[in-house]
């Protein structure tokens, strides 16, 4: 087995193990830590796929942004204590059946299709190529993404302010 393959299996085990741990975790903040493990694994997978820029973006946005935001959410809502998953309900059954059906479907698609092979990315980094792509070919999408972020920024601030005044109950 090559070193790449060993790394791939270890990383995949981390990703999937973290995700399964989230599913069964009883404490929300620990679920966020398991998510962190999973996200780190995904970043490592990007490095394996020679997308080093994307790996850095993944760490910066997910670990520096989204998980910190989630911990913040947990702290503000006091949801960090015990929160057991529902047991023995029909919900678990329906969720399991529909997820397994989806997994079977995806398995069939992945197994039956002949996937393209042979394309190899150049060894040197992808950053400058990505920069060119963002600012030439995909500049429209790039600008739309920035508008989206601006809308979210203003929207969330407004949302919190309006939501505080009206109490639903």
């Amino acid at each position, binding site marked *: 087995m090559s070193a790449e393959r060993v790394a*791939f299996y270890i990383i*995949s085990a981390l*990703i*999937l193990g973290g*995700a*399964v741990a*989230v*599913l069964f975790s009883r404490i*929300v903040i620990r*679920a*966020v830590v398991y*998510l962190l493990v*999973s*996200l780190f694994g995904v970043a490592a*997978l990007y490095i*394996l*796929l020679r*997308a080093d*820029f*994307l790996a850095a*973006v*993944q760490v910066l*946005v*997910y670990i520096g*942004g*989204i998980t910190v935001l*989630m911990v913040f959410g947990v702290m*503000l*809502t*006091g*949801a960090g204590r015990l*929160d057991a998953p529902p047991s023995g309900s029909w919900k678990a059954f*329906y*969720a399991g059946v529909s*997820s397994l059906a*989806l997994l079977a479907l*995806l398995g069939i698609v*992945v197994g039956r299709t002949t*996937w*393209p*092979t*042979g*394309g190899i990315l150049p060894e040197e980094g*992808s950053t400058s*190529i*990505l920069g060119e*792509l*963002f600012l030439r070919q995909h500049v429209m*999408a790039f600008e739309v*993404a920035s508008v*989206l*972020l601006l809308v*979210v920024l203003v929207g*969330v601030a407004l*949302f919190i302010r309006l*939501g*505080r005044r009206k*109490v*639903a*109950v």
Partner: protein
Amino acid sequence: MVSLTEYLVVAALLFTIGLLIVLYRSNAILVLIGIELMLNAANINFVAFSQALGGHAGQVFAVFVIVAAAAEAAVAIAIVVLLHQNLGTIDVEKARYLNG
């Protein structure tokens, strides 16, 4: 050399677990985590295809997905905090005021 199929299998499994979390757990923050996992599974696919096809379009798409995920997380956390302020709980099963 790890083949494309293996990456696709990992992504499919991750997506399924994410879906299971969204459907099974009722804590709003855990539901959000499930959605993030599903988005990550999609991203693994994009980057794996980008490698297999020898281009960078997949990576560009993945960056946009990450941007959308960040925006979505900010809105979702705001909703969770408001849910907590208005209902005193963040159990998504209990927020059913639009439920006729």
